[in-house]
């Protein structure tokens, strides 16, 4: 029977200096999977910035594991001590946890699901890997649908967008004034733009103060992130703009250190000011919320892993069940043939009735042994049962 082997490393086991040595691009991942698959194995390579993992389905577990370790060690010999090796049920559970985002740096992050899908598509897969990857993707989607693990922002930029939605609802058509163009403010602006907001003005320094104060009357969101040593926008200027805005809400996000926006702005009516600490607190709070949801997600993933294990274990006894049923069918047909002289006198509907009754007897006789063999397979003595059935019914003798 095909066994499942996982060899890999992740952010839990290896620092970034080591992970980057074994990180594989799309083509490299496909090539390594194809190379390891020579000889009839199934192989898929999952490579992200946080992990590189090889999933192998093979008859010979030791050899498959050895070759997978060698493949990764050939990229970077120092990685070998940081490699984990998991088999069958544990390997499947690991993949399911990965797809659900439970093994990610930020629990529940959504990108990993696409990366698992890509690994499946690029891999050289067959019955076993197809099944385990499909079920992993299903588990990942189920976790995201049934828990709130991925619902809250996990970065400062996503927190800024979430706050904007708390104030404005839909961000369609909302305008953004960008003060300075730091990396974080650009990410925050991008996050808002992906939700429908538009950048109305990018102003770089104090020299544009007049223009900035003028535009404060129109825009909905201000994101500040300049290198200025003092305040870029004071409360009096914002108060003046608010009078012109006639009650329209204004959201100001200050990502700069030292701060660009006068903290007194937060005291004004109809405007909301948040600095980098506020956003980081939101992220920290939502991450702890994600960890709480992770407990529920773990139980979903465990159930799915158990289903996979049952299916995988049943593979031990499936050939024996198929042989047994084929043998029974063969006997039934042979006996009907022998009784042909009697059956020849029956009309068509009577013949069909006899066929149906004999088929039903065979099915009923084999139903319980089939169920028991599948149950035994899950309980780990499926091979023994399969051999017993083969011996009792002489199935191997027939094959010989």
């Amino acid at each position, binding site marked *: 029977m095909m066994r499942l082997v996982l060899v890999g490393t992740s952010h839990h086991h290896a620092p970034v200096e080591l992970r980057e040595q074994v990180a594989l691009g799309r083509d490299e991942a496909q090539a390594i999977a194809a190379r390891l698959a020579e000889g009839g194995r199934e192989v898929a390579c999952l490579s992200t910035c946080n992990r590189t993992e090889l999933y192998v389905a093979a008859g010979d577990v030791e050899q498959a594991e050895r070759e997978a370790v060698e493949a990764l060690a050939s990229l970077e010999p120092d990685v070998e001590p940081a490699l984990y090796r998991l088999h069958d049920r544990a390997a499947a559970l690991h993949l399911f946890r990965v797809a659900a985002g439970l093994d990610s740096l930020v629990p529940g992050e959504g990108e990993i699901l696409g990366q698992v899908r890509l690994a499946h598509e690029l891999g050289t897969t067959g019955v076993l890997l197809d099944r385990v990857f499909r079920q992993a993707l299903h588990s990942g989607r189920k976790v995201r649908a049934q828990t709130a693990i991925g619902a809250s*922002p996990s970065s400062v930029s996503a927190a800024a967008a979430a706050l904007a939605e708390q104030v404005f609802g839909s961000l369609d058509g909302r305008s953004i004034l960008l003060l300075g163009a730091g990396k974080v403010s650009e990410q925050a602006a991008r996050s808002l733009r992906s939700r429908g907001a538009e950048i109305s003005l990018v102003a770089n320094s104090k020299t544009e103060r007049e223009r900035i104060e003028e535009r404060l009357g129109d825009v909905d969101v201000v994101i500040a992130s300049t290198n200025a040593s003092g305040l870029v926008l004071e409360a009096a200027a914002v108060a003046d703009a608010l009078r012109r805005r006639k009650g329209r*809400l204004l959201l100001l996000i200050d990502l700069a250190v030292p701060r660009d926006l006068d903290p007194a702005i937060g005291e004004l009516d109809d405007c909301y000011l948040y600095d980098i600490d506020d956003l980081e607190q939101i992220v920290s709070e939502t991450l702890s919320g994600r960890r709480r949801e992770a407990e529920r997600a773990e139980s979903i993933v465990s159930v799915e892993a158990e289903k996979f294990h049952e299916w995988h274990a049943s593979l031990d006894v499936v050939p024996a069940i198929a042989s047994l049923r084929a043998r029974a069918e063969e006997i039934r047909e042979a006996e009907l043939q022998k009784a042909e002289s009697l059956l020849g006198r029956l009309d068509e509907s009577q013949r069909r009735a006899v066929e149906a009754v004999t088929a039903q007897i065979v099915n009923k006789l084999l139903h319980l042994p089939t169920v028991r063999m599948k149950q035994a397979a899950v309980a780990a003595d499926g091979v023994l049962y399969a051999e017993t059935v083969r011996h009792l019914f002489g199935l191997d003798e027939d094959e010989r």
Partner: protein
Amino acid sequence: MAELLFWPALLLYGEAAVGYFGDVRRPGGAGRAATWGVRLGWLAQTALLAVQAARDDGFPWGTWASSLSLFVWLVVSAYLIWGCRRPYRLLGLVVMPLAVALLVIARAGGGTGTGNASHYSNVFLVIHVGLVLAAFAGFTLAAALSALYIWQERRLKTSPATILRRQVPALATLDALAFRTVAWSVPLLTLGVAVGLVRLVADDDRLDALIAATAVTWLVWFSYLGLRLLGGWAGRRAAYLALAGFVLVIVVRLALPATHFA
């Protein structure tokens, strides 16, 4: 029969009120149970009103107590339009305890039973009471939206770290919905008051305290619309004005009706 329907309505509304408080502490099951409480309680109260209408004289809400019961039904009906949606569940914190309290008062005043012949002899009065009550139900909902606005605004100002824990409608959405609700309700009140005045003049009756208070209420809500449309009032100031207007609605509904119905 009315007894049989009153208690389920009251208990289900009560369950909803408690459920919404539970939902604040731990969002999820309590909120869903509360929403079902509102739906089923509303059905029970609808049946109660139907029984009252069938047993009495077509429009049995001629006393202040029975019209209060109808008012509760209108408020819950208006609430059901949004209340079933998850982000608006918190509105139930304001609406449902109020509905329970008013329904209890309506019962204490004998407004939930049968056998009250209508005081109204013509369709004008039916329209008058119907329109005024519908407008007041709208104002109640607008006040609940405004209360939620003030609460959410305070959270945004003082505790941003936990702001995403609870699903609450955006400030701009709450503000716009409150405005829209008032924009529908003010014309209803205007029409209802106008019909009442026509009747007053025709019968050569005198102004009473309730009519005066209703006129002030109308003025406050009319000002709400005017200030929003022309004076740029929105957000917190508009929300506080809506709450002030709601206090007047309660005074008109509870403190003064005896002077009018007598």
